[in-house]
């Protein structure tokens, strides 16, 4: 992706598919939660929808452009730990795409939605229908997913405050300021 600033100092970061997948996954997970005891098969179909969204996002992580790619944001242990130390020391770099911790959160969320969906599907098979431990696994994984979602939201708010930019808005319109506003942390070392 070109780093050249476009109009209004904003540069495109999240492509349309990334944003559509993000918000449709939010919608599908939230409605799957709300319909978990509803009559009919809404909950099951919403579960399949989350799995389909995750599958497309994983494919896009290999085939998509720029910051959508896993190669753009999945970093090794030492780079991630180094970034975490920088955060603690108030000197972390600003990333246009996902920062190393955010990148691993993306992986964790996709994996956890996949596991919740898979365990839910398992419960609908003749072999595992009604088996208490399968239901417990599905519920526990869901609880972990919601804990990750809460952590994800906290991370977005935290990073937005640190770098004085609105990451929620960026996931809506896809653009970010090419240069960070005067930062609360160690300045604007762009990646």
């Amino acid at each position, binding site marked *: 992706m070109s780093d050249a600033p476009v109009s209004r100092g904003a540069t495109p970061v999240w492509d349309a598919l990334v944003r559509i997948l993000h918000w449709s996954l939010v919608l599908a997970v939230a409605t799957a939660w*709300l319909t978990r005891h509803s*009559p009919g098969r809404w909950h099951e179909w919403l579960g399949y929808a989350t799995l389909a969204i995750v599958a497309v996002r994983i494919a896009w992580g290999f085939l998509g452009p720029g910051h959508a790619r896993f190669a753009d944001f999945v970093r090794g242990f030492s780079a991630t730990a180094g970034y975490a130390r920088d955060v603690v020391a108030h000197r972390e770099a600003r990333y246009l795409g996902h920062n190393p911790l955010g990148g691993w959160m993306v992986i964790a969320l996709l994996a956890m939605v996949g596991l919740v969906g898979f365990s839910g599907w398992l419960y609908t098979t003749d072999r595992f229908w*009604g*088996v*208490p431990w399968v*239901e417990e696994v599905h519920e526990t994984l869901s609880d972990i997913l919601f804990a990750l979602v809460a952590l994800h*939201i906290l991370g977005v708010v935290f990073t937005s405050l640190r770098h004085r930019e609105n990451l929620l*808005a960026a996931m809506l319109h896809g653009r970010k300021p090419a240069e960070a506003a005067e930062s609360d942390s160690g300045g604007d070392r762009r990646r």
Partner: protein
Amino acid sequence: MSRRFPKAMLVTALALAPVAIAGATGLATCDSGSPDTWQPQEKLTAMLKEKGWQVRNVKVDGGCYEVYALDDQGERVEAYFHPVTLERVKTSAE
């Protein structure tokens, strides 16, 4: 930094609020009084096995026994029974 965040957090809090409301699913309710007066779950399980059901789990929901089973046709069923009469209770899904 825009002021969108407090609103976003409020929306999230509202979306997660149902987490606090656990308990009965509302799929069916049985006016079954005190559990002391109920027939034991084992009796229901034995009765259903007699009919050829493969009972996987029995829970209490809305004052009813909620049974997960494969029925005599091998179909997956989530069925509700009155714990005093052991009569099948229709759910809002049926």
